C-alpha cells in the first residue's frame, strides 16, 4: 500500500503544472451558463486541445495522451489547483465518449471524438423527459424507422448545456410494445440545429440558462448516428450512467482545490471558531474522496469493474459539494447572498448534484440492495 506516484507520473504532473501556469486565464472567464461565457469556454477547450490537455485519458489518435486513470487523477488535481475554468465539453467527454469507446463504431469514433476534444462540437445530454427523470425506463419520446434512418418525435427536458450546445445524445423508444419498459430503447445522437428541433432554454434557480427543453418534431436521425444495436439503448446507456456517477464526473482535484479555497476564506475571515468544524470537515471530505478514488483506481487497474460502489461515490460527492458551499456562504455572512460570486455560482451548481445522474434516493437504494444485500421493496 503506497501513495507515492511513479517518477513518470510526477513528470507528467510537472508538465501539466507548467502548461497550466502559462495558460490559465488571469481573469476568470464569464460563467459557462451564459452565451458569452459559453463562447469563451469553447475557446478554452480549443486552447487545451491544441497541446492535447483537453482529454488526457483518450488515445492519441483522437487528441488524447493515452494517460491512464492515475495520470488523469493527477491532471485533475493540477487543473483545479491552478484555478482553471470549468469544462464546457464535459457532458460529451465524460458521458458520450466512454459509450462510444465501448459501443460505437470506428467510423463514429473518428467522426465524433476529435471535434469533441477541441470544443468545436459541444454536446448536451438529453436523457430526461417531463415524465421521466431518474426513472429512464418510462421514456416516451419515439424513434420510428424511415428510409436511411429514424424519425424522432417527443420532448427532452432539463438538458444540461443544451441552451448553447451543438449536438445531443439520448434514448428514444423505438419499439412501442415490449415486455419490460427498459426494452426497445435506442441510443441516438442528433443535431440541435436540425430541422424540427426547437430548444427552449430554462433558467435554473439563479436564472442562468444552464439547461433547456428540447422539442423534437419529425427530426431525421441518420443510421450512422445510432449507437450500438437499435433496441439495446438501455444497456448501452447504463454503462455510461455508471461512469457518470463513478470516477469521471467529479474528480477529487475539484474538491481538493475547493477545500483549499474554503480554508483560505476561513482564515481570511479571522478563523471564526463557530465554523471551524465545518471547514475541517470540508478538508477531511476532500482528502477522503481523493483517497477513495486512488483505491478505486487501483482496483480498476487490477481489472475489477467499478460497479455499484459508484453509487456510494455519487451520494458522497453531491452531499459534500453542497455542505462545502453552504459553509462558504455562511462564512461570507451578508455577502453570501450576492449572486455574482464564484461561491454563489458553485452553490447553485452544487444544489443540483443530489438530483441529476440518478437521484440520491435511487443511489441509496442501489447501495442498500446491491452492496448491502437488503431485500427489494416498493420504492
Amino acid at each position: 500500500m503506497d501513495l507515492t506516484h511513479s517518477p513518470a507520473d510526477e513528470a507528467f504532473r510537472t508538465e501539466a503544472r507548467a502548461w497550466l501556469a502559462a495558460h490559465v486565464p488571469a481573469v476568470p472567464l464569464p460563467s459557462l451558463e451564459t452565451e458569452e461565457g459559453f463562447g469563451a469556454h469553447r475557446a478554452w477547450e480549443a486552447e487545451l486541445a491544441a497541446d492535447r490537455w483537453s482529454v488526457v485519458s483518450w488515445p492519441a489518435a483522437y487528441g488524447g495522451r493515452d494517460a491512464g486513470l492515475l495520470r488523469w487523477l493527477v491532471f485533475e488535481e493540477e487543473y483545479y489547483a491552478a484555478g482553471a475554468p470549468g469544462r464546457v465539453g464535459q457532458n460529451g467527454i465524460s458521458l458520450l465518449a466512454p459509450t462510444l469507446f465501448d459501443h460505437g463504431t470506428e467510423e463514429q469514433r473518428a467522426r465524433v471524438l476529435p471535434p469533441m476534444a477541441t470544443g468545436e462540437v459541444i454536446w448536451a445530454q438529453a436523457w430526461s423527459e417531463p415524465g421521466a427523470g431518474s426513472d429512464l425506463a418510462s421514456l416516451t419520446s419515439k424513434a420510428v424507422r424511415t428510409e436511411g434512418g429514424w424519425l424522432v418525435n417527443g420532448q427532452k427536458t432539463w438538458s444540461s448545456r443544451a441552451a448553447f450546445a451543438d449536438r445531443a445524445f439520448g434514448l428514444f423508444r423505438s419499439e412501442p410494445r415490449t415486455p419490460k419498459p427498459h426494452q426497445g430503447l435506442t441510443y441516438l445522437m442528433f443535431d440541435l440545429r436540425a430541422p424540427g428541433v426547437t430548444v427552449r432554454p430554462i433558467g435554473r434557480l439563479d436564472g442562468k440558462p444552464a439547461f433547456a427543453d428540447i422539442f423534437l418534431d419529425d427530426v431525421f436521425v441518420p443510421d450512422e448516428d445510432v449507437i450500438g444495436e437499435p433496441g439495446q439503448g438501455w444497456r448501452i446507456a447504463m454503462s455510461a450512467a455508471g461512469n457518470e456517477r463513478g470516477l469521471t464526473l467529479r474528480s477529487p482535484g475539484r474538491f481538493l482545490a475547493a477545500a483549499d479555497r474554503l480554508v483560505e476564506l476561513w482564515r481570511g475571515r479571522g478563523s471564526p471558531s463557530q465554523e471551524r468544524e465545518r471547514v475541517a470537515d470540508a478538508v477531511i471530505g476532500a482528502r477522503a474522496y481523493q483517497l477513495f478514488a486512488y483505491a478505486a483506481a487501483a482496483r480498476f487497474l487490477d481489472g475489477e469493474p467499478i460497479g455499484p460502489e459508484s453509487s456510494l461515490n455519487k451520494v458522497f460527492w453531491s452531499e459534500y459539494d453542497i455542505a462545502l458551499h453552504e459553509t462558504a456562504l455562511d462564512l461570507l455572512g451578508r455577502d453570501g447572498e450576492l449572486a455574482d460570486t464564484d461561491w454563489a455560482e458553485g452553490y447553485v451548481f452544487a444544489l443540483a448534484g443530489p438530483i441529476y445522474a440518478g437521484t440520491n434516493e435511487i443511489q441509496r437504494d442501489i447501495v442498500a440492495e446491491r452492496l448491502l444485500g437488503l431485500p427489494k421493496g416498493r420504492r
Partner: protein
Amino acid sequence: MRFLLSPQQRDFARSLDAMLTAADTPSVIRGDHTARRALWSRIAEAGVFAPAVPEAYEGMGPLPVDLAVAFVELGRHAVPGPVVETVLAAALLAALPEPGPAKRLLPGLAAGETVATVGAPYALDGDAADVVLAVRGGELWLAPGVADVRPSLDPGRRITTPLPGGERISSRVPGHAFDWARLATAAQALGVGLALLDRTVTHVTRRVQFGVPTGSFQAVKHRLADAKTALEFARPLLFGAAVTLAPRDVAAAKAAACEAAYATARTALQLHGAIGYTAEYDLSLWLTKARALRTAWGSPAECRADVLSADVLSAARRA
C-alpha cells in the same frame, strides 16, 4: 502508487477474524480478568502488537498499515482491554532517547507477556495492566499501579487513575507517539462501525413487521446506505493516515472513523428498536464502544482543530 492492501495484509485480517470469531468476545467481555488476559495474550501472539514494536526490540515494526489492519479486526470483534494503550506504550517507549526502558519492557509487550496502559490522565484498564506509564507535567513515569477503578459506558473498558510516585523514565514525552494511539483508535472505531452495520443488515433482513422484512422499507435502506457511505469513506482516510503518519492525516482519520462509527451506532440502535436497547443483547457491546472511542485520544472537535492547525499539537502536550 498502489493504494490497496497486499494479499498478506488481507490474509492477516482474515486469520485474526477467524481467531476472534472462535474466541467469542462477548462472553470474554462478560467474563472475569482471567478470560480477558487470555484473549489479550492470544491477540499479541497473533501479531497484533508486533507492528507497533520496532524490530530492534523483538517486534516487526514500525508497520502502521499492518497495525491498522489488525485494529479494524479488534474493533469488529469488540475486543476488550487496553489494546490501543498497549500500542501507545510501545510507541512512547520506542521513541525515547534513552534505550533502557524500551529494552526492558518492549519485548514482553510485543510477545504478549506484558499488558501495558498509559495514563494521560486516565489509564484505561490499569487494574489489568502490568505496566502503567503515566504522563505527568511533560515527563514520562512508570507508575506503581492504579487506583479509583470506575466503570466506562462501554462494559469492555474500565477507567483507572495512575498512583503517584514510581520511576521517572524520561524527562520528555515524545508527542508523535500519540499519533499511533489515534491511528489505532480510528481503526478500532472503523471496525466497530462495520460490525454494527453487518449486524443491523442481518437483523433488518430477518425482522418482519407489517408482513415484510423491515429492510425492504426505503427509510430503513437509506439510513443503512448512509452508514455504509460514511464508513467506506472513512476507510481510505484510515489507511492513508497509516501510510503517511502525518498528524493532520491521522487527526482526519480519527474524526471521520469515529463520526462514522457513532452515526452507525445510532442507526443500529434505531433499526434494532427495543431489542438493541438491552445490555443482554450483544449489540450493546459495540454500541457503547462506538461512544467511548469517539472521545478517546482526541474528541472529534480536537481532531478537526488539528486538521486545520499548521502546527498540530500533540495529545501529550494537551494531556
